[in-house]
């Protein structure tokens, strides 16, 4: 199965992570799109320097703004030792306001778009040419779900 789908499914199944799904989703959306774009335009010579730097910087961005809030929740749930109470209260306070993470993840998405790491409509259509019919079924259901 697709790795992003697997990640989303696993995170969704853990109640403690519910509040963080939006952050993760925005981040994986950016990366997934950038990778699709690179694959779609690969034969024309690959990445330019700024695009290359963007991909190269992702481990740090992932660590600082995506993994960190998840790690804090894990710590809250599993921490032991003399500083236990202090760590729990410190991390809970930190997680009450997710805006620092959100702002940085959003600017990462914006950066990807500025670097043209986003499929054009034409590229999108050719990458997913076989999915059109399946899509129609889902759109129908989506409109149904959102009605009212």
């Amino acid at each position: 199965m697709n790795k992003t789908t697997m990640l989303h499914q696993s995170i969704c199944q853990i109640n403690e992570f519910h509040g963080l799904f939006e952050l993760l989703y925005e981040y994986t959306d950016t990366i997934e799109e950038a990778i699709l774009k690179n694959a779609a335009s690969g034969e024309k010579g690959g990445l330019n320097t700024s695009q290359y730097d963007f991909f190269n910087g992702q481990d740090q961005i992932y660590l600082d703004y995506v993994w960190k809030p998840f790690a804090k929740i894990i710590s809250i749930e599993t921490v032991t030792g003399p500083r236990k109470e202090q760590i729990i209260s410190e991390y809970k306070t930190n997680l009450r306001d997710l805006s620092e993470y959100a702002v940085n993840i959003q600017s990462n998405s914006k950066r990807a778009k500025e670097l043209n790491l986003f499929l054009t409509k034409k590229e999108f259509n050719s990458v997913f040419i076989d999915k059109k019919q399946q899509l129609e079924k889902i759109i129908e259901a989506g409109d149904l779900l959102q009605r009212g």
Partner: protein
Amino acid sequence: MSECVLDSGRFSNHTSTKVVHEVHKVKNKRLKMYITILNFINNGGSITDTSLIEFEIYLNDNDLNHLKSLYEYLILHKDILPFLRAYQRQYKESVDTAINLVLLFPSVDKPYLRDSISGFGIHKEDAEIIVDAYYWSSGKIDPKYITLERRALVNNKDRVLHILRNQCTEFPQTTLNLIHISEIPD
């Protein structure tokens, strides 16, 4: 079609703040589609009473059957999910791009005019936007209100314009025309 209109450079494109607000509302609802479907798949595709409350929807038996068969289908075709995500990204991008191509006119608050023209298939929400368009059209050369709603418009065009011209006395009558998107001149 709408893309051609916005991109053509042949017109100056305007809309009212109310329209943009509505578009964003619909957009944000639709962008919940992926997470909705993901949650359903995680629940094993069963549609429970709790999930119905969660998504604030009313479903009759027909809707439920349709949804059930769809989710049964999706559980077997999880490979559709990466495509659904990519589709949502394209959708969001194209809505945001379109909004950036139009100039904004602040919506007016004229409940009396709105209620005078609504009815006969024109909803209050649509009526408010036509009133916005009439205020915007003041002083404009050849102003056109373009809509996708053929039925309501064709049946009501003369009545609506007559009411607006006669009841709106804050500025001289305008030459606003209401046209279906397919009637845009070449």
